[in-house]
Each structure stands twice: as structure tokens, then as C-alpha cells.
């Protein structure tokens, strides 16, 4: 019952409660207070894949309603709905189906283009967009599994991108794979250290990582902006714009299927990283300890796990993954030089992706691909149907909202409430094989 480890200090009202504890009182009264945040987080993370799926479905339906409501034809036909309702229904159908068909064509396969090579291009775009999201999402998910909320994706990406970018546009003369490897490693380390700083603050002083990572985002942004505006640091020599020089070809991630597609080797790295994350979380000692710390820091501490050290490790890994997303941005997506907006909001989208993927590595992978599709398809939707790309953002946001409120989704679809702690009944299917929590 001692509260001297920093993880115990998340809620300031613990210590006074303990201070006034009378001899003889069991002290259990403070328990619900302490774990409320924890419980909410678990509720979100323990939800089934079904909830994720239904949240997406529901969000797409809501998006469809928004598309219909904002469509001019629908509005016009609504004026004489009672005389000719068919017109309005047709208009709704046209606008909604048109929007989603163009979303599909923009993100997966475009039948209107001649030939498979052209038709499949949208899918390549989708995967390109998904690549940094996958690794960033994995970084955030790793934090979630260890009970840490890493909102500092932006800062970690910026530092990852800057370090990788600097290595990539300096050091001319290094041969191709070596230069690339150096650049990638530099970016990963930079992201890890920037995130590790927040971990260190939490481990030593108990500073809440939510607040420190958010604040470190600003520090990173303005610091990187300053470096990009300063000659001799990251700025393109002889330029006044806050922009870096272009990457040297020897440090660029080569295209995966030839020059005609934007998809680069980063995608393969992302797949390997997903494998690694799966191994880390489900098969490694470190992952076991991460999860123990995330699920019950008190028990972890009593079991001899050094909780503060684990917090630093988790943040280092988390930041390394997110930093890799920054690397993909500068060495894969935009190789002509980067500005301070290179993170493109991926650091924040990664949180959504991690939530949607239930913080499970392959779930995150799938969620990232879905979000990549939204991004690729959103532009196509805007171009061909004149529907604002913001609708896609609304759909994404509604997904987050629904995932954060599983009871809402359950209510809409009349799903039974999962009884997490009911004794000895939900485990029949698990059998004896499931040794480890997946």
C-alpha cells in the first residue's frame, strides 16, 4: 500500500486518502477511485474486434447521412418531397453511392482506368499512405499495452524525420544501402530518445506522460522549425524557406513495384516491424513485463519488475516506432526535402489507428490500411464528386468516438454486455491452448 512509485501518483487524491487512513481500516475504499482511468482504458482496449468493425460500419452510415444532407440535389428535391418522394430518394442514392464508389475507386481499384497496372494504382496509394501509419500506430499501441498514452507522435516523427533527413541529404558519397541504413537508424534513434525523454520524466518524477508528450510536441515543432530556418542546420543552402534540401538518391527508400507507383520499400519494413511488434508483445520477456506493468503496476512491482525502468523502455520502443514513421515520410513519401509539416498529422492519426486496431499488432496493421484507404479515397471523392474531403475526417472521428464508447456501439447493435469478471464461463473456447494473453 505504499505509494512511493511514480505510477501510483496519477491521481493526486490518493495520498491524502492514505494519509487519513485509520488503523484498522482496510483501505479498499480508495480502489475504485484509483483505477477509474485504468478501467476506462481497459474497456476500450478489451473490446472485441466486432466492436471495431461495427464502429467502422456505423461511422460509414453516419458519413453517408452527412453526404446526403449536404448534397445540393438532395436539398433541392427535399423541397418537394411530399409530391415526388422518389426524386429525393434517388438523389440520396446518387450522392451517397457516388461518394462511396469514388472512395473505393480512389483507394483500391479504379475500373475506369485501362489495364490492371493503372487500375491498381489507388491500392498502391493506399498502402503508401498506410505505411507510416502502421509503424506509428504500432508505437502508440505498444504504449497502450503498457498503460502509457503516447500523444507525442508528432514530435517523435519530426525528430525522426529531421535526423533521418539530415543524414540523408548530408554524407554524399556513401554507397546506397549503407547510407539508407544510417539514415533510417538515425531517425529511429531520434524518435526513441525524444519519446524516452517523456518516459524518463514519468519514471523519475511521476510527470504524466499525456501532458509531457503533448508539450514535447510543441518543443519539437518549433525546434525543428528553427533548424529548418537556420543555414548550416537543416535549411536548404541559399534558401529563405524553412525547408530542407532534397534527399540524396543513395538514402531514398526504393520503389517497391517500379517507378510508376509511389509505394516504397518502407511498406516491407512496416510488415517486418509488425511481425517484430507481435513477437515483442506476445513472445518476449520484455513484452511480458510491459504488459504486466500496463495491466497491474502494483503486482508488477511486487513481482520484482522495475516499473520505472519499464516505463522508460516502453517509451523508447514506442518512440522508435513512431520515429520510423517520420523516416518513411522523408525517405519514402516526400524525398524532395521536408518542412515542419512533414508529420502530416500521422502522429495523431496513429492514436486512432491504435485504438481501432485494439492495440494488437495485426489489428493496427489492418486499421492503418483502412485509414490509408480513407486518405487516398478521400482525395478522389473530392475530385470526382465534389464532396469535401472533410467528410472522410468526420467518418474517422466518428470511428474514434464510437470506439471510445463501446457501450454506445453495443446499444446501437443490441450486443450483450461482455461480462469480463463473471466466474468460469467465458473461457470454454479458450481451452488449454491459450497460455498467453493475446
Amino acid at each position, binding site marked *: *500500500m505504499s505509494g512511493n512509485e511514480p505510477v501510483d501518483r496519477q491521481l493526486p487524491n490518493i495520498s491524502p486518502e492514505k494519509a487519513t487512513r485509520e488503523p484498522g481500516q482496510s483501505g479498499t*475504499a480508495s480502489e475504485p477511485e484509483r483505477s477509474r482511468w485504468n478501467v476506462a482504458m481497459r474497456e476500450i482496449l478489451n473490446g472485441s474486434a466486432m466492436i471495431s468493425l461495427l464502429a467502422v460500419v456505423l461511422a460509414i452510415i453516419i458519413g453517408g447521412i452527412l453526404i446526403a444532407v449536404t448534397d445540393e440535389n438532395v436539398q433541392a428535391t427535399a423541397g418537394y418531397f411530399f409530391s415526388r418522394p422518389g426524386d429525393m430518394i434517388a438523389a440520396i442514392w446518387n450522392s451517397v453511392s457516388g461518394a462511396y464508389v469514388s472512395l473505393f475507386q480512389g483507394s483500391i481499384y479504379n475500373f475506369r482506368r485501362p489495364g490492371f497496372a493503372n487500375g491498381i494504382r489507388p491500392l498502391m496509394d493506399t498502402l503508401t499512405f498506410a505505411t507510416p501509419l502502421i509503424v506509428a500506430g504500432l508505437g502508440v499501441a505498444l504504449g497502450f499495452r503498457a498503460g502509457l498514452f503516447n500523444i507525442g507522435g508528432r514530435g517523435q516523427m519530426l525528430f525522426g524525420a529531421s535526423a533521418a533527413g539530415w543524414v540523408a541529404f548530408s554524407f554524399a558519397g556513401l554507397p546506397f544501402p549503407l547510407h539508407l541504413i544510417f539514415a533510417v537508424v538515425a531517425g529511429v534513434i531520434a524518435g526513441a530518445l525524444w519519446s524516452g525523454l517523456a518516459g524518463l520524466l514519468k519514471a523519475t518524477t511521476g510527470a504524466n506522460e499525456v501532458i509531457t508528450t503533448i508539450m514535447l510536441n510543441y518543443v519539437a515543432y518549433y525546434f525543428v522549425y528553427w533548424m529548418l530556418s537556420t543555414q548550416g542546420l537543416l535549411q536548404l543552402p541559399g534558401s529563405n524557406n524553412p525547408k530542407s534540401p532534397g534527399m540524396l538518391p543513395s538514402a531514398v527508400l526504393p520503389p517497391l513495384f517500379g517507378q510508376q507507383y509511389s509505394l516504397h520499400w518502407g511498406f516491407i519494413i512496416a510488415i517486418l516491424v509488425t511481425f517484430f511488434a507481435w513477437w515483442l508483445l506476445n513472445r518476449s520477456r520484455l513484452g511480458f513485463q510491459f504488459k504486466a506493468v500496463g495491466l497491474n503496476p502494483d503486482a508488477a*512491482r511486487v513481482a520484482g519488475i522495475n516499473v520505472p525502468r519499464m516505463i522508460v523502455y516502453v517509451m523508447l520502443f514506442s518512440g522508435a516506432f513512431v520515429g520510423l514513421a517520420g523516416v518513411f515520410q522523408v525517405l519514402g513519401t516526400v524525398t524532395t526535402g521536408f518542412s515542419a509539416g512533414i508529420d502530416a498529422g500521422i502522429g495523431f492519426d496513429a492514436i486512432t489507428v491504435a485504438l481501432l486496431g485494439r492495440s494488437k499488432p495485426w489489428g493496427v496493421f489492418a486499421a492503418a490500411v483502412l485509414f490509408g484507404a480513407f486518405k487516398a479515397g478521400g482525395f478522389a471523392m473530392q475530385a470526382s464528386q465534389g464532396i469535401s474531403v472533410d467528410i472522410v475526417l468526420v467518418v474517422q472521428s466518428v470511428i474514434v468516438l464510437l470506439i471510445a464508447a463501446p457501450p454506445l456501439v453495443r446499444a446501437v447493435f443490441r450486443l450483450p454486455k461482455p461480462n469480463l469478471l463473471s466466474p468460469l464461463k467465458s473461457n470454454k473456447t479458450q481451452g488449454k491452448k491459450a497460455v*498467453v494473453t493475446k
Partner: protein
Amino acid sequence: MKLELRGITKRFGALVANDHISVVVEPGEIHCLLGENGAGKSTLMNVLYGLYQADEGEILLDDKVQKFSGPGDAMAAGIGMVHQHFMLIPVFTVAENVMLGHEPTTFGDRLNVAKAREQVREISQRFGFDLDPDALVGDLPVGVQQRVEIIKALSRDAKVLVFDEPTAVLTPQETDELMLIMKQLKETGTSIVFITHKLREVREVADKITVIRLGKVVGEASPTASNEELASMMVGRAIELTIEKGKAKLGQPALVVDKLSVIDPIGQLVVNNISFDIKEGEIVAVAGVQGNGQTELVEAIMGLQSKVTGGITLNGRSLVGRSVREVLDAGVGFVPEDRNEDGLVSEFTIAENLMLDRSNGEPFVKHGTLQLATLAEFAEEKLTEFDIRAQGIGTHAGNLSGGNQQKVVLARELSRELKLLVAAQPTRGLDVGSVEFVHTRIVEARDSGVPVLVVSTELDEVVALADRIAVMYRGGIVGIVPGDTPRDVLGLMMAGEAPSGGKAA
């Protein structure tokens, strides 16, 4: 008021928590509901109190069928409840707590604290409580807080009072006083439902005993029944209440605690200059009311407290200033007092929990990788050896009953090579059957030559296990006495009185 529960059935999914339970409580009767944890006592009372709706059956008060859709209805009908964990607000005064929920007001909706104060005084007087209506509840000892709960129920004119495991948090003396209060209440015609699993208390106050097992009424017993009879009814098989324990074969002093003091994170001196030793093959029990420094003593030994002065040595090696990992590696097995908070990760499987404090190396981890096959084999073996009732090793610890959870903790700790076993409240909240199992295992550890430190607030447990008893009070040791010291002496020592005569061992 006569209370009758008729054929109450409550299901949670496939689980039948209450299966056609019928109980009649006559006016002015103390009716005891006896049953193990998880037998369905609390569910039944939550149905009575309107917190759950029964699937079948009905509740009758004075032969009239009642419909409760919430605790408000139950209270209005005259049912009061004294919860195990008090439903009081510590920063409110006694009077404020008593009026909470049905605050009397005067003109303009102002609170009429004076009236509540008066009510508290009046009821206190009636039962001879010495209770200041203006005292802050948080400042009161636990036994007195419980009286506030009782007054709260009585102030709403409760004719039926339900006591849900009321003695769990009390000292033996406070328990005795509560028994007296219950008898007084009975005299005034209040019907009392007393839920417990402690046999001694039942026999002392009950007029009638209904035994519940696995959600069913298994029979009625009279208060004259012996402990063994009651226990075997509760568990459904013959039970050894006092485990076989041979004479201790003492070896060298293994754990030596010398002038140990602990200052907790908020700066209070919680363990004050205590010294004792434990020999190989000996069980030393630390008795005392919860919160007198036992928790911190154990944490100091385990390396969980930072400000520790004095000496703790195990077989000559100092444990002071070591990390938890180093203490565990020194061969200390630890059963923490709160298994849910400190002993288990409830979302982890049984197998994962079995390796929780052994994740640092072989046999379960090689080259940073979990050895799942080894773990599964080990877990299967322990599941059988410790009779852990679960679907399989993949069952989440949170889905186990308290007894099985504790078996998981014990299995983990006892399967290492031990130089010392520290068991804090090893049977808290466990049913009689599991208590027997845990006690047997602890004595087995002792007999194999391991020194054992047991910390317990239950006198029954202390007496059952200890070779020597150290009683703690306000951070100090009042005295160290032999294991066969009479209960009343121990009770007085727990209240801070040094043992009379030179009986210290």
C-alpha cells in the same frame, strides 16, 4: 417486522447465483446466513435491498409482497443495510452522513443539520453509544464508523437490518461490542440478518442459522451445532478446522530483524524499532489489527519500502536496500496481502501469472524469449498439484474464485527454492475449504525447514499456524508470546496492552 424470502432465484447468464432460496426471518430474531464466499449470500441480500431484481420468487414483509426497484424502495419499506465496506463520506460529520440521502430541510431548502444531530443523539442514547454528531467520520475508529452505519439505517426506521460481513474489519473487542449491539437491537424487535462465514460469531449470537452452498439452501442449523458440523455443511464435506501440526523442528535463526524502523512515503513512522527473529522450520505470526505497521514491515522485508533503518538479514545476508528482484532472488517467497492488487494480474492467464515474478530468466525465459512450452507444462503440473479449479491454464486469473486465485499465488511462490516464506493475510476472503488448503501448505513449508512469517489480522489463523506470535500495535511489537497463548491475552495485546507476567518467549 417479519421478513420472508420465497423461492428467490437470480441468474447471471449461465450461472445461478441463487437457486430458489427461501428464508423466513421472524421479528426480533437474529438470523444468520452462513456460507462460503461465492455461495450467493451477498447476491441474495442485494436482491433484498433492491440492487438486483430476482428472476423468480418474491420478497414479503409482514406477509405482504414487496416490489423493490432500487435501494430507495427497500429503505422506505424498512430494510436497512450495514455494508461490509462502509458507505460513508469521511470528510462529513456523523450527523451529515446520517442525513445523507434524505436530508431534512427548513424553509428555503436549507439543510436542517440540527435535526439530524438530534436524531443521532437520540439513537445513540437509546443504544448507549457514545457518539459525537459533529465528529468527522474519517477521524473515527472503524468500529465507531460501523455504528454510524447502524445509526444511519435506524434513522430511516429500519425494521429489518442486514449486516453484511460486519466483523471483517473489526478487532476482537469491537466484534464483541457489535455482538452486544445486535442483541440490543433484537430486544427492541428489530429483525436482523447476519451474513458471515465466521463460525464463532454465528454460534454466539444467532437464533437461527441458514446455511447456503452454491446458491442453494442446504439446511438449517441450530446455534448449538459444533464448528465442525457447521463447517462441513458450508463446504459439503468433512473439514479439519485445526490443521494437523507437529512440533516445530527448529534450526538456526534464519531471518533476523534488528531495530527496524520504516518511514512511509508520507513521512509517518509506521514501523518503530522492532526486533525479532525466525528460525528455520518455524512459523512466526505477526498478529494485530489492520494498519498497525504489519503491511509496512512486510514491505520493508520485500524491498518495497524506501526509508528503512535497522537491520534485516536472511541467513547472514542483509536485505536492507535491496530491490524486490534481489530479495526474490535471495529465496524469499511472498504472498501479498491483497492478491488482486499486488499478487496477480487479473487479465493474465493462470500460466502467465505463474511466471509473473520469474520473468527474469530461465526456465521460462531464454534469450529474451518466453518459453511457452515449458510454461504450459509447468502450469499444467501446478494446476493439478495445487488443485486449482479452472477450465485450463489459459483461464484469466480474474475469472477465478478467491480461493483459486490464492492457490495460483501459492503455487508460484512455493515452486521456487525458498529460504523464507512471507505470507501476508494468506486466507483473507477465502472460504473454509481453501483456508484448510492454504494452511496445510504453509505448515508443509515449515516442516520442510523453511522459516515462515505469517501476518494475519484473524486470530483464528494466528492461533492455528503460529509457533510464536508477535503482536504489533502502532508500529511497535507489544510482545512476542508462544503460539498457545490464550485468545483474550492476544486480544488485549492487540489493543496495546503488554502481556502480564514474564511470559514473553
